[in-house]
């Protein structure tokens, strides 16, 4: 492995990497060794056009661009000397010659690389007295993105993104020289399943999303690491949180999962967190058939007494569990333990399926389908079949994914059951047949782990707290278990402890707890369930 020296620090690097890649690999880029850059992006082809990343390489007379200079053994690189500093100042000054400098009204302010680098590497005052380019403002590029041509610094990240990642190529540079502009081709709007990533990679305020722009200044946002729950890919995200509200999802880099991208559908799924159809209170169906709002204790009491009556009269075999692939491993482990303690053997997980692609979007539209199966939940089909054959009198349903065509199809098959207990985040047709309803937390509101399609265990932490009372599925199940007097249930639920119990009980999760899993996740060990699945 070649050894290089950057600013006096010796670094061992992989063969065939460029200087910027080597620093990125080592986690040092802009994190110890600062080489500012615009056109270079770790997940896009090298462009080499912004010329900001120039560094001095001993033995080469001209400054070299770090993004396109391969490392050689013994290479000595200087990134902070006077010559490099002047070159950077030169590029920064030129980039600002035509920039409108409208930071006060620009939505990118606060996370703008032009702003940041101007403070860090630029010159204090512009010497340009010339009129700036007057170009198009507020250009509607497509359903998701708005473009300000004047702010664009023509780094071409967005052009390369569209060409290389979704491979749709909607964007191109038109004209040349200082009249170059980015445009779409006539009749071909920027419209692909990943279009909004261009706003993330745009270093300036040229490309912004219609969804987020002007909603809040970014410096008010706290970035909470989390996982997108839109499908089983489990893209790593930052939830942008302020005032106990999630304003956006942006992709969080994880080279093992989603690189630096996220699909538009996943990005927009943040809206589900505070959606008007969120369930806000516990309810039980009274004798007149109306749903009556109650407290959690009352809901648990009603659920427990209905289940107890069935167990006493018909045995636990008539109680079925429908698990949700939106629930965490900790929820599901608790649920599975509950069903076992109760003596129910009819259970399964319902997963909504949809379109997939070969980039990020997976077929299973829930974050934890693999985890649910790993924890012993089979196909919900078996539960539905048993309901159809009349062998079930009570259903405990986590979520409402079993309503889909091919499983229940509607709430109808449950209409004549003795007891339907629903734990859900959002309203659904299940409300029409439920006897007990408990609102539960969205992934953005709780602590726990999911297992993605590539069998990676990933953590969510509470980013916001709902203003109404909600509970983790596991917490509700634990209370229900205690109310039923089941063995091993004392009514308490602590996700951290459950994760440790899970690790001890299931070899695939061995050694994984809510701390050690970290923000980047950890691969799940192979297990009987995973081998059977393959």
């Amino acid at each position, binding site marked *: 492995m070649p050894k290089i020296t950057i600013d006096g620090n010796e670094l061992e690097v992989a063969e065939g990497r460029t200087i910027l890649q080597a620093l990125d690999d080592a986690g040092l880029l802009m994190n110890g060794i600062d080489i500012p850059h615009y056109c270079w992006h770790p997940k896009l082809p*090298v*462009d*080499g*056009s*912004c*010329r*900001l990343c*120039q560094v001095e390489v001993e033995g080469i007379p*001209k*400054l070299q661009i770090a993004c*396109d200079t391969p490392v050689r053994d013994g290479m000595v690189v200087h990134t902070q000397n006077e010559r490099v500093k002047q*070159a950077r100042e*030169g*590029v920064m*000054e*030129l*980039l600002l*010659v*035509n920039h409108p400098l409208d930071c006060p009204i620009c939505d990118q302010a606060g996370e703008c690389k032009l702003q940041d680098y101007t403070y860090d590497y630029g010159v204090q005052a512009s*010497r*340009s*007295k*010339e*009129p700036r380019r007057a170009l198009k403002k507020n250009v509607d590029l497509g359903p998701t993105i708005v473009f300000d041509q004047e702010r664009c*610094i*023509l780094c071409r990240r967005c052009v390369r993104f569209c060409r290389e990642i979704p491979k749709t190529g909607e964007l191109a*540079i038109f*004209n*040349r*020289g*200082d*009249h*170059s502009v980015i445009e779409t081709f006539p009749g071909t709007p920027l419209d692909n399943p990943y279009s909004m990533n261009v706003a993330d990679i745009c270093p300036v305020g040229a490309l912004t999303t219609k969804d987020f722009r002007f909603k809040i200044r970014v410096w008010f946002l706290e970035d909470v690491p989390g996982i997108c729950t839109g499908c089983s890919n489990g893209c790593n995200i930052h939830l942008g949180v302020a005032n106990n509200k999630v304003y956006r999802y942006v992709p969080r880099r994880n080279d093992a999962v989603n690189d630096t991208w996220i699909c538009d559908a996943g990005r927009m799924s943040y809206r589900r967190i505070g959606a008007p159809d969120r369930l806000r209170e516990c309810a039980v169906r009274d004798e007149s058939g109306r749903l009556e709002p109650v407290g959690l204790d009352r809901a648990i009491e009603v659920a427990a007494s209905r289940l107890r009556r069935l167990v006493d009269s018909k045995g636990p075999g008539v109680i079925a569990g429908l698990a949700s692939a939106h629930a965490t491993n900790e929820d599901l482990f608790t649920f599975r333990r509950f069903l076992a303690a109760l003596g129910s053997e009819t259970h399964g997980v319902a997963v909504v399926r949809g379109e997939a692609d070969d980039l990020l979007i997976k077929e299973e539209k829930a974050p934890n389908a693999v985890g649910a199966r790993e924890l012993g939940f089979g196909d919900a089909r078996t539960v539905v079949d048993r309901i159809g054959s009349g062998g079930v009198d009570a259903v405990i349903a986590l979520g409402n994914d079993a309503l889909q065509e091919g499983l229940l199809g509607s709430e109808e098959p449950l209409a004549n059951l003795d007891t339907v207990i629903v734990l859900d985040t959002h309203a659904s047709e299940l409300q029409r047949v439920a006897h007990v309803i408990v609102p539960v937390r969205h992934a953005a509101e709780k602590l726990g782990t999911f297992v993605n399609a590539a069998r990676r265990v990933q953590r969510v932490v509470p980013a916001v707290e709902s203003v109404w009372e909600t509970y983790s599925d596991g917490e509700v199940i634990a209370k229900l278990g205690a109310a039923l007097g089941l063995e091993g249930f004392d009514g308490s639920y602590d996700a951290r402890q459950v994760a440790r119990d899970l690790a001890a009980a299931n070899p695939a999760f061995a050694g994984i707890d809510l701390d050690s899993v970290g923000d980047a996740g950890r691969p799940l060990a192979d297990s009987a369930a995973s081998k059977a699945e393959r």
Partner: protein
Amino acid sequence: MLESPYVTQYLTEHFAEADYPTLKGYERFGGYAAARKALTEMTPDEVIEVVKTAGLQGRGGAGFPAGMKWSFMPKEDDRPKYLVCNADESEPGSFKDRILLERGAHQMLEGILIAAWATGACATFIYIRGEYAFPAAQVERAVAEAYAKGYLGDNVMGTGFRHDVRVTRGAGAYICGEETGLLESLEGKKGQPRKKPPFPAQYGAFGMPTTVNNVETFSHVPHIIAKGANWFRSFGTEKSPGTTIFGVSGHVVRPGLYELPLGTPLSEIVFEHAGGVPGGRKVKGVIPGGMSMPILPAGQLDVPMANEFLREQKTMLGTGGVMVMDETTCMVRAASVISYFFRDESCGQCTQCREGTGWMNKIIERIERGAGEEADIEVLGDVAGKMEAKTICAFADAAAWPIQGLLRHFRDDFVEHVRQRKCPFPGSFEL
């Protein structure tokens, strides 16, 4: 015989012959004997060796040794190899390739064939400037003749060597004369230079090993093969052998093309061959090698026209386009024209070039119309310095150098504009 203003050496010797552009006419003067000699009597390495010994420098502007360029083509490589003939002559002040295409298309084709043999290339793309309609027609006819005669195709001259030639046309961008910008354009993409490495010899046209040479460079090759390296070295200087065609334009009595040995003093070209400035006026400055080369003031015209001497005067031979400006010329106006051209033609990839060409042009135009300040002159020089040597291709240099040259030698013109708040040279050339 056509009337010829040319001072003819071997390249243009027969250009006045009416039938010389045809295959029959070309062969009448010994055409294609050199190619036959190379293909039947010489190994590719021997050809490269002769061209190296001859010291033929590329005539496209950069002056890179042609034989060495050919030797960069990978030998152990199964991919098809290509040659590209750069006929996208678009440097303002340069018009030598045009005559070589119009009157010497077979001479160029013979050079291409020899280079193809030397490099193992199976095909050549001749990329001709879009505006060159007549030259392109001449080349297309010559190619058709060569195919008909068996000088191109599957079995060149019965040797079993295969070589195809395809003529393509540019669409009017200066930057497509830069070799990798040309390759992009050739492939049907937007003409933007590629970053190097990889160089064309590794990754050229359509990703294949490629050598790009200028029209004139190819045109010298048959003569070198026919008459030998030592004969070639009898022209020009020790370091810059051979002749070149100087295109003289501007304020001279006899503008035109002059084939002269490299190293001919600039003053001889301007005053003897081109007849000096009309009307008894004095020379103010001369751009020696196309618009991208820094200007020389009247006092430095004794310089021999070869890179080793021109570099000492901080300029270069470029494409040999000699532009003469007399004492009535406003050098700020010249700077304005030059900077407008480069602003318009920059491909816009690199920050320094894209923003720098525009900024320089805006400053110069402001000074020209009398709205400049002395500080602007400093900024102008500084912007030019920021552009130099920091970009993907040499365009930014080409845009910065002439402005630096004008500031170096004619700073007073800029200062006078600022002080008088108007142009002190009324009646200076208009476009």
